């Protein structure tokens, strides 16, 4: 059996899945000031009377690091950045303790200017005296040649508890994002570490010894021990939990839009034949654009609690939320109130009369009955969501491509199927199907689909490898790998090497050997010509373990679907 736990803003969902499908599901209130306690309570409750050897592992999706970033409650960390020529790295300053140092490497990985050891030493001493214990180091083009970052690390090592190096964080070329990502890793590291060590040791004290995984923003998992070096990966795992909880029930041979209709927002993502689409670079969170691998998700300010108002003489919904629906004592009318008026809700806690009172002024202004106004609000909410879904698809389809082949055979998404989860999902599903070209389906067990998604997701990771046969080297700096190669080294050799590294990395970060569903993200090979002569090959390979579900998920999800 596997535990899936998803911490939400108000409550935390915990499920236990196993041979008989959804074995248990519970909700506990989230105490944001004591997340640790919430998680522990959840695990204790869900495992009550079950011996821990029956539990294979637990996957946690928490808001711990996300909240720290969004609420600007990051632990003090320092950044040491070497840029060289180009845009002044000062433009990418992340925090107070941010130092631009000398040293520069060009796009080919060649050193243009060495680092200045004394300068680093001096900064290290100063930071130490100021009590800084965690530091990030990023050089421009460190993903091509990590030497400067490694040299700086060596100088810093005696002064700090933990050092994060840009080239280990991502193989993508994007210096500003590498800076932001490394900074976030260094800044959330202490809370991440403290939290998980507390969870582990408390569980151990209570005699519950189960391996713990975290869910990542890319819909994959990672063993907790491995996450210590990449704590930023746990950011924004919430939306991916819901998407992963829908995967098993999506059509195997179709493109599907997954919509999580919440109170404040509706989050959307895309599945292609049950495989979630990844964002090209990484998530954006708060003011940070990062290289943290993530599902391509799209969030709009439209949910059950969005404000309904009249602008000019037409209805407008969102994008803001002021409070809960009036049915629950909120201050302004919302789409949820419209559902109450239309009797499209099974919630007995709300007060339909309050909703009617709330919608009356709107109905009067529009010169229609309250029921008619309620229907218009409901209809508009569905229309708005569909419009944004179409826009999202258009945006994905207009992503630039760089080869003739891609232009000519350009794969264009044309999803005709939607899956919805969230409170008003079933009512929205029915109406959206009526007014659109989509078939619309509700995700089974949608109220805990997020926790089910966490439980069933497999371990994912990515490897970037490049080779320059003119220089005679193949490198994967993210994996601390480098090896001499001969001039007859080919892309095929590079792929084999990359797959080896990927398998190793996946297993090290907690993957099950049966879950290694490998995939090519990029494979490019260029003739290098210098002085009209072929002098070598430039090969670039990016490989991943695809986000998806663990190998025996079907046995579980078939039962869930049949419930």
């Amino acid at each position, binding site marked *: 059996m596997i535990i899936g736990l998803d911490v939400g803003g108000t409550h935390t969902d915990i499920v236990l899945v196993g041979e008989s499908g959804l074995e248990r599901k519970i909700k506990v209130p989230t105490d944001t000031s004591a997340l640790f306690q919430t998680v522990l309570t959840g695990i204790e409750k869900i495992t009550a009377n079950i011996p821990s050897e029956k539990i294979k592992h637990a996957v946690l999706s928490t808001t711990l690091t996300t909240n720290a970033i969004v609420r600007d409650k990051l632990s003090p960390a320092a950044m040491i950045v070497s840029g060289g020529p180009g*845009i002044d790295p000062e433009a990418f300053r992340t925090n107070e303790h941010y130092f631009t140092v000398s040293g520069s490497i060009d796009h080919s990985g060649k050193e243009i200017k060495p680092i200045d050891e004394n300068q680093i030493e001096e900064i290290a001493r100063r930071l130490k005296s100021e009590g800084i214990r965690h530091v990030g180091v990023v050089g421009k083009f460190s993903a091509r040649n990590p030497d400067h970052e490694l040299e700086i690390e060596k100088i810093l090592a005696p002064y700090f508890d933990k050092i994060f190096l840009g080239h280990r964080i991502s193989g993508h070329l994007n210096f500003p994002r590498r800076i932001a990502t490394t900074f976030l890793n260094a800044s959330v590291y202490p809370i991440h570490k403290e939290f998980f060590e507390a969870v582990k040791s408390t569980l151990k004290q209570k005699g519950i010894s189960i391996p713990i995984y975290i869910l990542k923003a890319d819909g994959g998992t990672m063993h907790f021990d491995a996450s210590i070096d990449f704590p930023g990966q746990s950011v924004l795992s919430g939306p991916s939990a819901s998407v992963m909880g829908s995967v098993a029930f999506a059509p195997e041979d179709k493109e599907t839009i997954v919509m999580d209709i919440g109170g404040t927002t509706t989050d959307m993502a895309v599945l292609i034949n049950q495989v979630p689409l990844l964002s090209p670079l990484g998530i954006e969170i708060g003011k940070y654009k990062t290289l943290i691998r993530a599902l391509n998700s799209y969030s709009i300010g439209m949910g059950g609690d969005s404000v309904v108002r009249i602008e000019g003489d037409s209805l407008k919904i969102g994008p803001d939320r002021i409070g809960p629906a009036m049915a629950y004592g909120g201050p302004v009318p919302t789409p949820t109130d419209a559902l109450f008026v239309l009797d499209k809700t099974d919630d007995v806690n709300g007060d339909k009369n309050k909703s009617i009172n709330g919608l009356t002024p709107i109905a009067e202004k529009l010169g229609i009955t309250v029921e008619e106004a309620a229907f218009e609000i409901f209809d508009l909410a569905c229309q708005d969501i569909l419009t944004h879904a179409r826009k999202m698809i258009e945006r994905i389809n*207009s992503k630039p491509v760089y*080869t003739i082949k891609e232009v000519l055979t350009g794969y264009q998404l044309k999803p005709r199927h939607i899956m919805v989860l969230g409170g008003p999902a079933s009512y929205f599903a029915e109406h959206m199907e009526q007014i659109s070209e989509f078939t619309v389906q509700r995700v089974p067990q949608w109220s805990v689909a997020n926790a089910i998604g966490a439980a069933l997701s497999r371990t994912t990771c990515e490897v970037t490898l490049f080779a320059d046969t003119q220089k005679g080297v193949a490198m994967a700096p993210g994996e601390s790998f480098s090896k001499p190669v001969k001039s007859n080294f080919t892309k095929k050799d590079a792929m084999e090497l990359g797959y080896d590294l990927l398998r190793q990395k996946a297993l090290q970060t907690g993957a099950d050997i049966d879950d290694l569903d490998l995939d090519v993200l990029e494979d490019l090979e260029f003739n290098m010509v210098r002085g009209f002569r072929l002098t070598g090959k430039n090969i670039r390979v990016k490989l991943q373990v695809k986000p998806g579900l663990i190998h025996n998920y079907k046995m579980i999800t078939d039962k869930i679907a049949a419930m």
Partner: protein
Amino acid sequence: MLSAKHKTGLVFFPAFDWAISPTHPEREERLLYTQDQVFEEGLLDIEGIIEYKANVVNIKDVQRVHFCAPDEKTVMTESHFISAGGAKTIADAVMNKNIEKGFALVRPPGHHAMRIVHGGRGFCNVNNEAIMIEYLRSAYNVDRVAIIDTDCHHGDGTQDIYWHDPDTMFISLHQDGRTLYPGSGFPEELGGPMAAGSTLNVPLPPYTSEEGFLYVIRELVLPILDEFKPDIIINSAGQDNHFTDPLTNMHFSAQGYADLTSLLKPDIAVLEGGYSIEGALPYVNVGIILAMAGVDYSNVKEPGYDHSQLRQSTQITQVIEKTCDTVMSNWNARELIRMRMKGNKKFDKRRRSVMYDTDGFYEHQNETIRICSDCSGVLKIDSTSDIGQHILAVHVPRKACRACREQGFEWYDSASERNYDMIILQNRVDDTYQIRKKP
């Protein structure tokens, strides 16, 4: 956070799967390191810099500019359709005001492609800028256009296409044609009888550096543009003036290109040549993009750049100053020159041969233009290529007067199919393209 002063669009189409031949300068690898640099600098994350996906041009877009023999599909590869399409994409975004400025970083280049196309010359098959401009004219009613060609090679293709068009100001800065392909682009090349002065050529001595280029822009190009009052300014942004370029002999730099761009303030830039793919292009392109967007580029420097080493001699400065004086006085005397060229003639004729170096053959042209005081004059070209095609191309210009239109139709109708493989009427008044072929 960095943000662009001018909202700037970018089409990046490196054609990673297209080359003229494996070791040709125009090969897959050409923009690889530029992409690395653009990505690593994070330019696409700058607020106000937007990347667009290149669209493809259609045959009709090509037929507004070119006469392709035997047809478009034969002389163009897919890559040409996309490269020109990239320029068109940027033009649309500028005209729809989605962006203020745009840069089509596309390959293959186009500025050596002339009106008649039998094949490839100077790595170019069709003219990306001209296809974009004529599209702008037909879709958005743009009238006056200025093209400033800052590629190191003379933009002889663009010059040829706009030779007779007084509404298109073409100014080319390039390494002196006596020292470099294609061997043309001298100050006395001024355009045809109805358009003289709207073509201007500024040959620069080898080893011209930042000072020289910026002098020409400041002292010559900008004042002329002020007078010409274009609706839109296009920069044919070749990057082979760089001091590391393997095909040329100039001393220009990334800083210089960025400075030139901020002085010229083009609405649209389109990449042309530039073959120092590691040492120059990554930095020059970053410099141009930042300059267009109005973001500080003062720290963009290529390895090995040393301003003091690249200074031009006083002798070069003097040559450039003198050339600028000549060009300026030609510009000022343009009306007089036009009158003199027209004389009392009814038609003006010229014969010439065009070399297709990329594909290795010659084309021979007999050109006739009707001297007209009401429009830019209808044009016909009798063209034969060494590889077989013999065509008659009739071009009725965009603002053709009635008499010129009728002359054009008469030329088209009366030509005998027995004498030509194809007789083509490119009618820009009605935006049509008609072909008669040997039965």
